[in-house]
């Protein structure tokens, strides 16, 4: 490893805040881009499931 200790890795000779902020922002962007479609998908199935269930109930009521 280029750094001799973990503390040095975090500090990065004074440039630590800059480097770690960048990587943190990158992680945020990556997570946002992964979570956002997952949430959309889950929301879709929830809503559509509800609609489908309601349609089925209405059909059953019509048959009765």
């Amino acid at each position, binding site marked *: *490893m*280029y*750094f001799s200790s973990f503390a040095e*890795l975090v500090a*990065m*000779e*004074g*440039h*630590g805040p*800059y*480097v770690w*902020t*960048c*990587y943190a*922002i*990158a992680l945020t*962007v*990556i997570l*946002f*881009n*992964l979570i*956002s*479609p*997952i949430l*959309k*998908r889950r929301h*879709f*199935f929830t809503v*559509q*499931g509800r609609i*489908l269930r309601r349609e089925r109930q209405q059909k059953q009521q019509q048959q009765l």
Partner: protein
Amino acid sequence: MAKSWKMPKWFYQLGSPRWFYDISGRLLPWFSVAAGVLLIAGAVWGLAFAPADYQQGNSFRIIYIHVPSAVLAQSCYMLMAVAGAINLIWKMKVADMIATCCAPIGISLAILALATGAIWGKPTWGAWWVWDARLTSMLILLFLFIGVYALHSAIEDEVTAGKAAAVLSLVGLVNIPIIKYSVEWWNTLHQASTFKVTEKPTMPPEMYLPLILMVVGFYCFFAVTLMMRTRAEVLRREKRAGWVRELVEAN
């Protein structure tokens, strides 16, 4: 203006949303694993094992985020424009959906490139923002993305919105070389000294190998997030189709 050249059969099969949903479902795990492995390996290598730059010190490690995100932002725009063109010429729904999903991803990638570029500037040049050619071009690219996204959101009818956004992204695509050339030229006029931010070809392999890992990893990540978004879009637009209903039932 809409010329339709005769394409082979598999080309039209690409236009089926269901086919896209199935095949993307099968590709997702592979690309996800690849993205995860490459990004983690590249980041660890770049952060902990690569040597620091002689002039810039450890802040140089930001390159492993800045360059991949910049490259991806540009590729994302090109894909958006090409997908839009395919939608305009062959009226393929899947192309329209892919183009629509590219815009928000491109915006986030361009913002990432700009933010990391600006943060990199502070220890390197002492300022949070410099009007250098690359950052300015990336800023303009961000505006182009925002324009396409804004136009798409402003039009209510989805099909019309997709077509209008496609025209705009194509106009932007034609302009991008002109914009790049003019910004670079403008920059040489107004900068006393040119700071070359990245990739001198004289980078030793310990420095540019992790960069390659990160670029490929970012491409895989882009594929993953684009596929996920487009799948959600396919479901939403095709919600009346039989196969979607079966999927809903299964859940």
